[in-house]
């Protein structure tokens, strides 16, 4: 029980530290790598929450595909370091103050007002990976078939859109 809590706190510390590192690091490549660390930590949280399939999807899609796309664009644009352009001196303190306010509101509303019952089951007592995958697949293809198909159309449209957006300019330029 104590081990669970210690593991949670350590992972939470890594997640928050890597998110802050993403926020404050000057080099965009470092930011992307901090974000990869954050995504992997969140994937471990999914494992602790007995969602192994979502954890693997998180690593392959987020930490794999999406962040590789980010790094590709960063290096394509050569935008590792951007010159500092602080135009509004009061912007940063105001943003920090508003963020703290937002966090206080969210914590108050989520924890005190709509309090969910019970604890998170440890993974050993919950479903195993095969069972999770099986149940998820049945639910996905029986109860959520229409959203699944809509998402596939959305992905197709996004793919075509990305190609059109990046190709038209090149033609006009030549």
């Amino acid at each position, binding site marked *: 029980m104590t081990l669970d809590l210690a593991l949670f706190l350590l992972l939470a510390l890594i997640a928050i530290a890597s998110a802050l590192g993403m926020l404050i690091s000057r080099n965009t490549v470092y930011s992307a790598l901090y974000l990869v660390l954050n995504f992997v930590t969140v994937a471990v*949280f999914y494992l602790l929450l007995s969602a192994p399939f*979502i954890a693997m999807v998180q690593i392959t899609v987020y930490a794999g595909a999406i962040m590789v796309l980010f790094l590709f664009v960063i290096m394509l644009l050569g935008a590792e370091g951007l010159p500092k352009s602080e135009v509004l001196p009061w912007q940063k303190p105001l943003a920090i103050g508003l963020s703290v306010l937002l966090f206080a509101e969210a914590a108050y509303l989520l924890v005190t007002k709509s309090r969910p019952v019970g604890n998170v089951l440890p993974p050993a007592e919950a479903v195993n990976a095969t069972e999770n995958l099986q149940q*998820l697949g049945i639910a996905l293809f029986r109860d959520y078939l229409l959203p699944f198909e809509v998402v596939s159309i959305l992905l197709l449209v*996004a793919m075509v859109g*990305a190609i059109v957006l990046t190709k038209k300019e090149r033609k006009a330029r030549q």
Partner: protein
Amino acid sequence: MIPVDYYIILSAILFTIGVLGVLIRRNALIIFMSIELMLNAANLAIVAFGSVFESFSGQIFVFFVIAVAAAEVAVGLALIVEIFRSKRSIDVDQVSSLKG
């Protein structure tokens, strides 16, 4: 046994850091990464609630969120590449052509 409140608080902290990133950074790519961080925080909260209520709908919803995030990243990064081609910069302060 970890109370679900801890996960919700962690999710709120990560979401707040994402909001902070959108508010104080001027680099379009960092702003985009902060949006991804916010989506992740929301996903974490959804899975935590789903785990408490022992329902699979939470995990399926997160699956759809990840798919939509992938589509969003593809289009968004294409837009950033376009902005860089026309402005030679991805500083969002430079994208002010509509300002009177």
